């Protein structure tokens, strides 16, 4: 339990992620308006991205340069680290993964908004409680 708490406190960004996730999930489950549900879904998505970025972060780490020339000039903070012999690099893989996750979420949002339009055309309301009560 102590170990668990220590991990939690050392990475406060994870705690923020969890709080954001809970807010989004609350909106997704409890709110009855479809648009609010979709906004909640987007908040959940944002929290997951934040989590992904936070998991890659190294304090004062340099951005990784994939395509850079090896002799490219480093900025001041990087040069200082390099001089100290510890050029900490931020893990580049999560940043690459997140691009794909964002594309997924954009398509998901688009498709659920188009569904909301269709629902409104058919039922004349966006309130899910009313929609579930109405017979098809």
């Amino acid at each position, binding site marked *: 339990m102590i170990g668990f708490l220590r991990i939690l406190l050392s990475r406060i960004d994870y705690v923020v992620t969890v709080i954001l996730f809970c807010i989004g*999930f609350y909106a997704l489950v409890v709110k009855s308006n479809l648009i609010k549900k979709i906004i909640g879904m987007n908040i959940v998505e944002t929290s997951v991205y934040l989590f992904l970025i936070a998991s890659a972060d190294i304090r004062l780490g340099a951005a990784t340069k994939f395509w850079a020339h090896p002799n490219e000039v480093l900025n001041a903070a990087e040069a200082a680290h390099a001089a100290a012999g510890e050029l900490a690099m931020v893990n580049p893989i999560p940043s690459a993964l997140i691009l794909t996750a964002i594309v997924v979420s954009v398509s998901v949002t688009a498709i*659920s908004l188009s569904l909301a339009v269709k629902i409104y055309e058919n039922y004349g309301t966006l309130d899910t409680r009313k929609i579930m009560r109405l017979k098809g």
Partner: protein
Amino acid sequence: MNQQSILPIFAIAFPLIGAVSIRWIDKTFVGQASRFTAFITLASAISVAAMYPHINAGKILVYTLSTGLPLGIFFRVDTLGFFVGIISICIWMLVSFYSVGFMKDANSPVRYNAFSLLTLVGMLGVVFSGDLFSLYIFFELLSVASFMLMAHKQTRVALKGAIIYIFMGISGGLILLFSIILTYSMAGTINFSIIGFGLKGSPFLPIIFTGYIIGFGVKAGIFPLHFWMPSAYPEAPTCAVALSSGVMIKAGAYGIIRTVYGIMGSGLMKGSLLTTALLFIALISIFVGSAAAINQTEIKRLLGYSSVSQIGYIILGVTLLSPTGLQGGLVHIFNHAIIKAALFMCAGAMIQQTGRRYLKEFKGIGHKMPVVTFCFTFAALSMIGLPPFNGFISKWFLAIGALEAVKIGSYSQWIGILAVGILILSSFMNLVYYGPVVYGAWFEREKADSGSSETQGSLDPGTDMLIPILILAMATLAFGLMPGWPLNIARKISEAMF
């Protein structure tokens, strides 16, 4: 051991190219979109089947589709991926040939076929991907594309079912992504070639495991997460439902197998409270699915609840943590795909030909549609688990696996007895809800037009729909009498997992 091979790319590229070019094909050759789709799936099936010699020789096919980013999409086909992949693509191909006849008069068959092909890309991608992130991408593609199939008719009920489906699917997918990231930051790897990611002792282990089970469980439709299934099925096109219930829910089951045996590893799961919890979820799933199916009055809802129960069998086999139990679960993936696709295709033919959908309206249908009802009877008997059919084989192995789990000490004695008891009880419950349908179809007469039904001609659909149904109905008998091939592959997989 590892072999570079482009075959997985071929299997996925055919439907992808097909989905993009289908509108152009439909303009050039008017009305041929469905037939084009069927032949695309045939080409993809051949690519998957061509992997068999390599897989049989114990090789693992790998291919990295580099995108310039540090982590490309990585394909890795091992025996488990091949096993789920070959049954998926075969069922998909048969359903596609069936939908040539089924979607003839439906609105916008082009849209249906394009999204069917995209869903196939997602399904094959899930089983062929070699790391968790590629799996996530294809899993989301599967969710989003299959949503379009569920909402295809655009009626009020269809949209209502689809909105439940998409919100559950997307929340599940996000929780899955959350778990994948946690796994990556805890274990430092997301590659499936490692068995057991070394999460032992991690304080986040319960969170990670629960996240995977929720993410994959929504797609699989296990008990507390099954609500999308009965609400989306009744109004979706029946061939899409056959695909969803026969094939897509297996993506969830495949994910759970990967979680338990790949990411966690059987050593870590043994004696863990998490596995016991999942076992109880599976048992509740079996019981609740069967119990809910008894009350249904509509054929597609009945079959949907039956799927909830059958997916419970598969998860039970996975969580038993005994080699025979896993073998039974894997063979049940194979057998359930055949049986449930056959049942839904028969139901679809009945609904289309008679325009009826409630169980009480199907009385005496055996005299009007003898061939379809005959196939339905075969599949229903197989689902109940009668000996000459293939449903019996997997249930038998599951029961043996439950006893073996007690013997090797995975579970205490009373859990083993409970599992076997639930298996037997559920078989009786299957009899209770499939029995009246089959009995009524053959031996009862409809009141309204008694006597006149013989004089009418047969209502059986055309050969393009009948042939896939007949193939699957015969397969239920063939794999019951000669279960060697699926059993052998499943044994190889379960030996590699333990």
